[in-house]
């Protein structure tokens, strides 16, 4: 029997990368899955890929009306949510503090923080007793690194939301936790760099990352399965780090 047999899961940012790998893992473990993304083309592709037991919905989590429409659809189709994976997130353009614009800053916060907040708030009427809510933070929220101040701080805010939501929702029997991925191979590098640059970046990662590789999205999905399932029934308000050790030690002295 699957570890998520019979559960209804909603995954925002489920049309690519970590969210899509998690949708596959949830399906394999017996859940029914709703994946959400902004780009209709990716929504359609995800639907084709995931098949019968999945529903793919186009919605922007930064838009409250679209969130309402999303949950109306979930209510009609499934009546409830057992697992909410609020995973939609964007890195934004890498900019040093002096080059940051208020538009670029707001864009990151609109999806990562405000989007996550209202993704959870608007799901509340549908969340079943015993439901599990999982937020995606990032190892970036543990570090000081140049050029990612908006992104890193937005994820620190999400980490804090996981704690506040956990305190508020445990009274309804809903658990809230976070996953903090380190560098994950979701095609982000291939998307941002030329093929020659990709080689250089990959070489650099091998020398700087303790495990000498990025995470595969399936490895982050494994963490999501654990937090989604009743196996983590006494885990609350926690942030599970899956970063290959980057944030916890240096591999050279």
């Amino acid at each position, binding site marked *: 029997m699957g570890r998520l047999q019979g559960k209804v899961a909603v995954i925002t940012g489920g049309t690519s990368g970590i969210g899509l790998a998690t949708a596959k893992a949830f399906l394999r473990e017996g859940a029914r899955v709703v994946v959400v993304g902004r780009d209709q083309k990716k929504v359609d592709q995800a639907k084709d890929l995931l098949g019968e037991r999945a529903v793919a919905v186009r919605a922007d989590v930064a838009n409250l009306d679209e969130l309402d429409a999303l949950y109306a659809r979930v209510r009609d189709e499934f009546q409830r949510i057992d697992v909410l994976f609020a995973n939609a997130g964007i890195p934004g353009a890498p900019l040093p503090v002096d080059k940051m614009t208020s538009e670029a800053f707001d864009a990151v916060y609109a999806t990562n923080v405000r989007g996550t907040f209202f993704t959870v708030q608007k799901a509340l009427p549908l969340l079943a007793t015993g439901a599990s809510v999982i937020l995606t933070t990032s190892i970036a929220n543990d570090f000081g690194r140049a050029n990612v101040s908006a992104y890193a701080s937005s994820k620190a805010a999400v980490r804090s939301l996981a*704690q506040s939501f*956990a*305190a508020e929702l*445990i009274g309804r029997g809903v658990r809230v936790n976070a996953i903090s*991925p*380190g560098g994950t191979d979701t095609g982000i590098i291939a998307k941002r760099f030329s093929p020659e640059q990709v080689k250089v970046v990959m070489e650099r990662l091998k020398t700087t990352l*303790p*495990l000498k590789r990025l*995470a*595969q999205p399936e*490895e*982050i999905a*494994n*963490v999501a*399965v*654990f937090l989604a399932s009743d*196996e*983590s*029934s*006494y*885990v*609350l*308000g*926690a942030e*599970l*780090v*899956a*970063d*290959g*050790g980057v944030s*916890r*030690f*240096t*591999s050279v002295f």
Partner: protein
Amino acid sequence: MERYEAKRAVIIGGTSGMGLATAKMLLDGGARVLVTGRSQAGLESAQKELAKGGVVVSSDARSLTDIDALAARVKAEFGAFDLLFVNAGFGLFAPLENTTEAIYDEMFNLNAKGAFFAVQKLAPLINRGGSVVLTTSVANVKGMPGLAAYGAAKAALRSFARVFAAELLPREIRVNAVTPGPIDTPILNKAFPAKDVAAQVTEQMRGLNPMKRLGTSEEVAKAVLFLAFDATFTTGAELPVDGGWSQL
């Protein structure tokens, strides 16, 4: 195929509570398991509970001689293995003014030093891709009156997890800590032999916990097995299983 088929695990402090629950789950999942304990009663009851194929070994987790003997036994029994769960531990309650040198040494010998040398002696037998899990405690991150020495020893253990993770990385062995909050195990009655005191402490912990209950040994065991076999990109980390106590 069963979930833990062909896996071999060594559990130091596996004759009771969360160690025993982990051993049972592994056996049910098709793994081979060797557990250690010290008290005769614990060893005997574990023998019965793990009749399905667990190996029960008497070994004092504080004794370096015993740890050497254990390593030899594990080698004879398994050759190499996949999971080392270092879980033996105990907390003596004593406020600062009443903490004798003996209490202090006992806390560090059992919870920190014994664990250190267990990993030193047994890590060479762990397979590439294997894993070590150390049992710390919420007391390592939350100040709790009466638990200064215990909390500090568990904090040392938590620190070992990070450095061991760095040092064992070249062999692709992940090292993580599981951090229990109040868990309903026989430890409570060992710490508070007077029944009414045990009941009172339990009630207090229940009240203070965000989930308003104690956790179960099985809930910790599931987290241990997650760290051991599923969390393939997690090393040097700590997983709290505490009903939110240290997090909210």
